[in-house]
């Protein structure tokens, strides 16, 4: 049984940039362990000679011409959802403490 510890959950939360409450950390420690426990049944499946599947309909390397196409979307519309901006730029909080 894979047991996630509280530190593992806190470490994961840091990696995925999620600020969790103490309750969430406790809940997730238990729940995520149970989910991992369930999916670990796959360790017993014999997959010798098989390759992993990444794409199911057989497509490979779908490319398009390296040309600019705005598909009719206006810059203004695309920017209308920005929480904060300055001119044409996305404005974010400072990166260093």
């Amino acid at each position, binding site marked *: 049984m894979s047991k996630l510890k509280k530190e593992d959950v806190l470490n994961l939360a840091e990696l995925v940039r999620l600020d969790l409450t103490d309750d*969430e950390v406790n809940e*997730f420690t238990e729940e995520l362990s149970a989910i991992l426990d369930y999916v670990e049944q796959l360790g017993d499946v014999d997959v010798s000679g098989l390759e*992993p599947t990444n794409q199911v309909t057989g497509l490979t390397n779908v490319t398009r011409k390296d040309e600019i196409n705005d598909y009719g979307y206006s810059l203004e519309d695309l920017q209308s959802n920005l929480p904060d901006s300055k001119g044409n730029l996305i404005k974010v909080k400072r990166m260093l403490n």
Partner: protein
Amino acid sequence: MSISWQPIAEIAEDVKSGKIKSVDLVNQSLKAIEDNKQFQAIIVTLKENALKRASEIDARIARGEKVGRLSGVPFIAKDNFLVFGADTTAASNILKGFQAPYQATAINKLETEGAICVAKANLDAFAHGASTENSDFFTTKNPHDDTRVPGGSSGGSATSVVLGLAPFALGTDTGGSIRQPASFSGCVGYKPTYGAVSRSGVIAMASSTDVIGPMASSVKDASLVFDVIAGKDELDGTSIDRSSKSFEISDNNLNVEGLKIGIVKEYMSDGLSDEVRQVIENSIEKLKKAGAEISEVSLPSVRNALAVYYILCPAEVSSNLSRYDGQRYGYSDKNAKTLNDSYKNSRGQGFGKEAKRRIMIGTYVLSSGYYEAYYKQAQTVRTKIINEFHQAFKNHDFLLGPVAPTTAFKIGENSKDPLQMYLSDVMTVAANLAGIPAISLPAGHANELPVGLQLMAAQKKDRELLELAHKTEGLLK
């Protein structure tokens, strides 16, 4: 309170001939939405845009101009489709207030044929769930019993169709999210071959299995909608070419004689409730009587499909949800002092529990040291499942089974235990992993709750599957 609509093709004909006005249809739909508010199927209506589009269509018809195949037909889109005229939220707090700067290809195609989107339907936030209880806003009620869930994640779409809020709705199916609510609520839900419909403009969940499909009152209606939205699109690199033949069911031939249909043995044994089994066995009897050649077939690895799915899906979710960072759109914590805090607070406050759970699990199974044991092993077991489907379709034209092990469960019954909730997908996920088309058909009732029959076909056999579904629907009536 529920209203029933004419077949979609007939509605469009009546609009074209001037017998009914598109504006009246939109108003009828808006009234049905208002009258059925207590079921909480709808997040928002698009009243203004819908009425404007309807009067434009009426005006074009009055001028004698040519109009499309779905002229004036109202429909409802799951709220993970980008549509103009209201917020697109995927039922999540983090996307509250998000105004789509462009529309989904599927929506554009329907509008080109004259269909009118009247409302956005509720879902489990970001389509993570099997009951709509994971919606950050509210839980939709089952149209047959308001103490029960409608299924999910396309629960709002299913309830909308069953209550007649519009003649059809759009859903998305990543692990069963069209078929399971169709089964729980009692409508037709079609999950096409992977890539058959462009997903451009649909909020991504697990990109290797996400598909778009119609939910409707009949297979004929679903086939017409599917015919309109199917096809390759340069905005979705995974979309595939369609054949030039129409997918729309055009005849009423109900002959199933000689069709080889395999009953998936594993779906008839593992945890299937007796009441659902009874309905499925009755359906099998009717198909047999009508001349279908039915035999049992074993796909032993579908027993592992759910475990495969709950590794691959969170892995892809954790990647797809990384774009919600509080900087480019959606909820952003105003009080954060640094960029890193802004990320953490915006995501921590904006995401619901299930999204967080999947982001965490997904990142864990992809992390170095665990990748081989979880993610790569899951992708390889996926190959094994696909191979077994290939083998089964060598001897059978179609496969058959239940959609879900139970009928609709009570609101709150499974919401405390995420693993129990995941088990709701146990009979639907394999089709997603293999990319094959599958449909849920109303097959009967157990304790007055609907039960869906699932039919599956090999990849790209969408037309054949819809034809069989249409025939089966006729036999089950």
